[in-house]
């Protein structure tokens, strides 16, 4: 149905033409789902855009053909393409809020797809839209048509976008990272929907994602892209169980498994980074990072060759490489394996912490300071302990209050209630109330590599500043100390005079870690430090953090939404929902039953990078409630899938706040359901990877 041959796409820049895609070939059968996977900058999205021949003002197809239902799309006029777009070929993008027009009602945006392609009357189109919305399980489908995009939640927006794409029963649907902007439980529900639609419709899907787990759930076949080329194409089983290209093998080795922790497994990052278009090597593009590189690879571009079992690989030596015999290269960045120290002293302890934010009222009375005062209970009655030399992982979806908790600990916000002690010192106040000694002991690593460094200063200046400020070393030795810190995060001294814009994401994150370490802090708070990084780099940063911890006996608090990452790095885990800790305890206890129903749902939502994983699905319904008006009783009762197991059908959950139940060994669950019930839930969460 779709046959792409030797596709080369270029972008004109001021000076030259940059090739974003080079010689890409693949085909797609009716009803089939092809996954496109690869790191950022590999040309995945460009591939999606070029299929509909919509490459913007400076992009163009240099070479190759795109045959769709027997006709070549290359060189067709805009008019002809317009007939196809939205009709035979539809697209779904990453951020639903961005792809919906903010100032048009959803009904109008949906209807026009029908009225333009099918000359349908408005009434008929409306009926069809409602049907389409019902097909994607949209509550109140008719009402949604009259709303504006901002009036529905992100998950609902993505459902609308999918419904819109399917209105004309397209034969090809291109989905470009459709769940990346969504929370993990919402992502799981959208993926369920896509899987269900695949069963009921014969639409072929090109599914673009960086997330191997998501690809494994949805796709029949997978094309792995690297630097604008397809390096391997095979069935999903082959890709995950018998990858042939060294890059594919590397990708799979560097993803933390949900069942894997730091004592039982090791992450092996791929060294180096994806080359930019202007610095691509001659010969095999992967040769600069390949462990098996030979002289021939550096000169000769390998062809995409067919291998046994309908797999295609772009490697000279695919037959000779056996992943089973793989050994890590001697200079690989691998974290040392250390068991957590037993019975270490308490470093930080919080009891009944509260952080409320005033919400500006919307009523007329509030304008004059009257009326009811409203608060967002961002952190409400949270207690925890962090022992020296260990890592506490905090997990939760957006809006759960995990970031606020960290901000309060580091002192960017003051605390409104409860006790917070660091090494016996009261640190309830914000930074302005803390001594320099306390400040230097608490440092932070930030999420976004692009904003963690000040673009106006060199790497050296930025690491030197905390050294000077905290007087860690005498003035004359600052430069040497900076170089030492750079080396500690595996950057050489030539980085000293570089500016942030000359660094890759992973390198910026390393500098961020070096800066945090400059004052020799006792506690480092990591706010999603790897979530914006590609998987291969993510593994390297995780290893680096473990190494740093090992060498300095640093304590860490590690926030993440990715449960596999937390499992890998943490010793203790706390799960947050709407400002409360619903479950906390040692990492092994959290990832094994008994689970809090919310933890159970989170775990079952994680896309596992294994096509054979079939977990029992526990899905949450509805949207997360607002923290301004949290539900009464148990805050989770509005979405709890296990409420029905309560003797009275869950009436008690609505009225009465649950108490913490001790499951032993410091494992605490905030739920009304007895531990016995929780322990024997029919949850298949851990089947994968265990």
């Amino acid at each position, binding site marked *: 149905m779709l046959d792409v041959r030797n596709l080369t796409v270029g972008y004109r820049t001021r000076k030259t033409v940059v090739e974003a895609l080079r010689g890409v070939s693949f085909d797609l059968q009716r009803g089939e789902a092809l996954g496109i996977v690869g790191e950022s900058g590999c040309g995945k999205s460009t591939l999606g855009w070029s299929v509909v021949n919509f490459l913007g003002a400076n992009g163009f197809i240099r070479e190759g053909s795109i045959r769709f239902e027997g006709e070549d799309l290359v060189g067709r006029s805009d008019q002809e393409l317009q007939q196809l777009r939205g009709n035979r070929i539809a697209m779904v993008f990453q951020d639903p809020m961005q792809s919906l027009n903010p100032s048009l009602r959803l009904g109008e945006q949906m209807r026009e797809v029908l009225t333009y392609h099918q000359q349908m009357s408005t009434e008929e189109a409306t009926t069809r839209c409602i049907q389409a919305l019902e097909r994607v399980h949209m509550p109140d489908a008719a009402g949604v048509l009259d709303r504006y995009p901002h009036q529905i939640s992100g998950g609902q927006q993505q459902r609308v976008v999918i419904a819109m794409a399917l209105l004309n029963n397209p034969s090809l649907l291109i989905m470009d990272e459709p769940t990346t902007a969504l929370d993990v439980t919402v992502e799981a529900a959208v993926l369920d929907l896509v899987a269900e639609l695949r069963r009921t419709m014969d639409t072929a899907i090109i599914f673009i994602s960086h997330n191997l787990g998501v690809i494994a759930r949805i796709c029949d076949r997978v094309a792995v892209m690297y630097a604008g080329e397809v390096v391997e194409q095979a069935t999903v089983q082959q890709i995950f169980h018998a990858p042939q290209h060294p890059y594919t093998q590397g990708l799979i080795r560097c993803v933390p498994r949900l069942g894997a922790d730091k004592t039982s497994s090791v992450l092996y990052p791929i060294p180096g980074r994806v080359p930019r278009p202007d610095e691509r090597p001659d010969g095999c593009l992967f040769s600069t990072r390949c462990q098996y590189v030979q002289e021939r690879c550096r000169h000769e571009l390998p062809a995409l060759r067919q291998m046994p079992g309908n797999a295609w690989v772009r490697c000279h030596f695919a037959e000779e490489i056996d992943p089973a015999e793989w050994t890590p290269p001697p200079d690989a960045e691998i974290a040392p394996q250390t068991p957590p120290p037993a019975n270490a002293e308490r470093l930080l302890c919080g009891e009944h912490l509260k952080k409320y934010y005033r919400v500006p009222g919307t009523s007329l009375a509030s304008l004059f300071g009257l009326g009811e005062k409203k608060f967002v209970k961002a952190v409400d009655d949270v207690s925890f302990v962090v022992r020296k030399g260990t890592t506490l992982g905090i997990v939760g979806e957006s809006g759960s209050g995990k970031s606020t908790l960290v901000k309060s600990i580091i002192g960017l916000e003051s605390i409104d209630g409860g006790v917070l002690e660091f090494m016996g010192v009261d640190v309830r106040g914000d930074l302005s109330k*803390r001594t320099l000694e306390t*400040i230097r002991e608490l440092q932070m690593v930030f999420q976004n590599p692009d*904003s963690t460094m000040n673009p106006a200063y060199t790497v050296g200046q930025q690491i030197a500043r905390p050294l000077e400020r905290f007087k860690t070393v005498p003035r004359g030795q600052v430069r040497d100390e900076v170089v030492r810190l750079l080396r500690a995060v595996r950057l050489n001294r030539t980085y000293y*005079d570089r500016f942030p814009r000359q660094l890759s994401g992973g390198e910026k994150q390393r500098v961020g870690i070096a800066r945090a370490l400059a*004052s020799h802090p006792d506690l480092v708070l990591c706010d999603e430090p790897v979530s914006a990084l590609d998987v291969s780099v993510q593994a390297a940063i995780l290893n680096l953090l473990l190494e740093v911890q090992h060498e300095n006996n640093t304590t860490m608090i590690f926030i993440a939404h990715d449960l596999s990452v937390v499992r890998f790095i943490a010793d203790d885990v706390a799960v947050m929902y709407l400002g409360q800790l619903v479950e906390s305890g040692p990492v092994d206890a959290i990832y094994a039953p008994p689970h809090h129903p919310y933890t159970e749902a989170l775990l079952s939502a994680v896309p596992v990078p294994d096509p054979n994983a079939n977990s029992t699905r526990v899905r949450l319904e509805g949207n997360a409630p607002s923290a301004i008006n949290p539900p009464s009783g148990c805050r989770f009762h509005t979405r709890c899938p296990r409420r029905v197991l309560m003797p009275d059908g869950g009436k008690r959950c609505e009225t009465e706040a649950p108490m913490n139940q001790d499951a032993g060994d410091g494992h605490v669950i905030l739920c009304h359901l007895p531990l016995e019930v929780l322990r024997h839930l029919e949850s298949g969460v851990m089947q994968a990877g265990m």
Partner: protein
Amino acid sequence: MTTTTAPPELESQPGRLNRLREALAIVFSSRTAVVGLAIVIFWLAIGVISLFWTPYPPNAQLFDPNLPPSAVNVMGTDHLGRDTWSRIMAGTQVVLLKTRLATDPRVVIPGGVAIWGVIGAVLVGGLLGVNAGYRGGAADQVIMQVLDAFIAFPVIVLYLVIVTALGRGDVIVILAITVTGAPGVARLVRGLTMDIKTHDYIRAAETRGESKWYVMLWETLPNARGPILVDAMLRVGYAIFAIGTLGFLGLGLPPPDPDWGSMVNDARKYIYSNPLAILWPSLAIATLVIGVNLFADGLREEITRYQR
């Protein structure tokens, strides 16, 4: 690898040179900016030359009034018989090159009225804006409310009020340009600050326990300099524009030094007998303002492209 000798200091100097080269490359990669820069440099050159030489003394009444252009007077003469080209040349000085102090007009400091006015506006507006943006809350509200009051004035009305209240003079005009420009700069800087504030490196500085002023001056402002620079350029254009308008209204820079706006105003009365006399200073103002605008526009386009 274990060497501890200090790396040669030369390392950073090529870096600085590179940055200069980069900045120049930005200018030269935009045709608009190059054209604008050429016009500005032309007028700067004319101004510098006029400091040492003009065809005739600009204030001397050597000829018959209202002569048409001729080989002797390339642009003709004005209503007092002064050479128009000499006066046009000298007219660049007060705008771009020198400021006469109020106490004694003969005491001159380098830098024209437009330049000092804009520097004042950028300093005042920048400080207010970064404080409003970074501190937020009540400080922000108070600062912005006060600035709103100044923004609410039509610029020329505010000029008229200031001139009515304080009289004429180079320093007064500088003050007027500062007062009218500062609120705009403050709004810009506030917006930039609020954007920069969201970046993690600001959090990093705060978790280092840096003072508010350190964060504002050393962490925030350096990253706002591109847009501020472009805005300042545009403001130089507005300032030249405003000086011309004030001169035209007879309220601008005091005599005797020639000023283009006043020249238009003088020539206006003889528009029927000597229409060209009004054309030359008008053209001078228009080209200089357009030049500055083109330069700023080109620069802005390139900087945004560069940042993308």
